[in-house]
């Protein structure tokens, strides 16, 4: 039974990667379990300058999921490189995936370049799909030409594999995937959250202070699976699948849809051991479905 997978020529211990924004900068989770069972860790979205993010409330519950509107709170790229990444690298040998957010092309480029120059970073995940920052984020990820141009510019300055994280809030996610691959992306990850909202019946106001946020959790799993399948049929680069993955079976399904690795997001927030439990449950789940080598099922349902 082999649960290792290959990503950009590197062997990952498992296909399971905690998704950006649901695992902090990783090191705090080392108190709960040995992180080395994880194929990679996608760090909290990082911007050039420190950001507080959005006013509270930033969280609203949904049927089978939640809305978040954090707004890219982070200590800024220099503090991430000086403090957070070394702290994680001290307890984790797997693939560190630095997630980059921004408001302008210049900010994306500067931040991505600094992170890619950091020796502990294996790959850069460019977040052009954050629905929670004004004048940036998703604005770069909903127009194919803008996305392609941004990726092209960033790629020239980044010396590590460049993953582009795609927004589901578009008409055709396959078109977006083609555009960023044309721009030079080495891989794509999807889906980021779906824009949604809740209203407090008592106050008659949106629960989220900035009105809307991103929906994630099991509610979005079938949508995510379809989009991963669409994208895997459209491009020939590694696809990292995410969106509502909660169990080992979900991870297998995501891989059959075309994902070579799987990110786990919302599940970490209700169960700090979610990624560990998914990894540990994989062999038995593979056994049940006659899978000996997990890589064999990637794209089985294309």
């Amino acid at each position: 039974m082999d649960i290792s997978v290959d990503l950009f020529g590197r062997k990952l211990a498992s296909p399971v990667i905690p998704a950006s924004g649901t695992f902090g900068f990783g090191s705090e989770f080392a108190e709960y379990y040995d992180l080395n069972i994880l194929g990679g860790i996608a760090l909290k979205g990082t911007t050039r300058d420190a950001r507080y993010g959005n006013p509270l409330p930033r969280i609203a519950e949904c049927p089978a999921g939640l809305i978040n509107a954090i707004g890219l709170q982070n200590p800024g790229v220099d503090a991430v490189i000086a403090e957070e990444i070394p702290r994680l690298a001290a307890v984790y040998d797997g693939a560190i995936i630095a997630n980059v957010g921004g408001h302008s092309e210049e900010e994306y480029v500067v931040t991505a370049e600094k992170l890619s120059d950091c020796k502990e970073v294996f790959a850069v995940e460019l977040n052009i799909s954050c629905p929670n920052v004004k004048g940036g984020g998703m604005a770069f990820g909903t127009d194919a030409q803008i996305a392609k141009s941004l990726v092209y510019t960033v790629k020239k300055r980044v010396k590590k594999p460049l993953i582009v994280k795609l927004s589901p809030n578009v008409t055709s996610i396959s078109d977006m995937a083609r555009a960023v691959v044309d721009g030079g992306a080495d891989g794509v990850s999807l889906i980021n959250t779906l824009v949604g909202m809740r209203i407090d019946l008592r106050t008659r106001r949106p629960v989220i202070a900035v009105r809307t946020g991103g929906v994630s959790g099991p509610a979005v799993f079938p949508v995510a699976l379809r989009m991963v399948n669409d994208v895997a049929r459209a491009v020939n680069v590694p696809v990292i699948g995410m969106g509502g993955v909660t169990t080992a079976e979900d991870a297998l399904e995501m891989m059959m849809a075309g994902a070579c690795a799987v990110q786990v997001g919302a599940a970490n927030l209700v169960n700090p051991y979610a990624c560990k439990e998914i990894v540990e449950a994989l062999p038995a789940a593979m056994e049940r479905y006659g899978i000996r080598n997990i890589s064999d099922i990637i794209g089985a349902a294309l």
Partner: protein
Amino acid sequence: MKRETLLLTGNRPLTPTVFELTFSGASAMRAGQFVELEVEGQYLRRPISVCDSADGTLTLLVKRVGVGTDKMSRWQAGREVSALTGLGNGFGSDATKPLLVGGGIGCAPLYRLARDFAEKGVRPTVVLGFQAAAEIYYRDEFARYAEVIVATDDGSDGFKGNAVAALCDKGFAAGKDFDRYYACGPAVMLRALSAWCADGELSLEARMGCGFGACMGCSIKTTDGFRRVCKEGPVFDAAKVIWE
């Protein structure tokens, strides 16, 4: 943080909306810490502060305000509940003349703290603020360990007005009547307290995603920088909270 399966051993109403839930199976926790409870049919766990933790029994007071707490209020003894325990920092307890100030359901986490002081031989003063007499709970329980002052917004019991108004009315002064205060309650009360006196600790409330520091859903601004209510808090130095 630990993940534990708790056994509900009792559920009794204290007021029409506040319920006292007692559990066995929880590790010991400090005053001001909290737990995150799984509620059937709800995606997010519910953060509830520790009212008491002693002799293997965990006591939580739950106010019915929404769908999650409504379900909890109907839980019956014998139920097993998945919980993340030992969350947050908790109150300090180094005052020699402590003043405890609670508003509404925010009185609950002061109970364990009052006991801590009493067990050290210090009898604190506790101001408990409620909207009306029908909503008062734990007055007798607090009286075992503390001097209790009750305030109600409508004057139906005790001082007429909120907890902060009661303190001002009675002329409480730092250095004379207390050397440090410990408070939990509505944000407006905590803000008024911090303006009244900087020498205190405030237990803040926030809508949380995870409760253990992963999502940044509950971060506030402090003079030390951004701080997570769930992880570096929920108790903050009154002088350091930056109110929005």
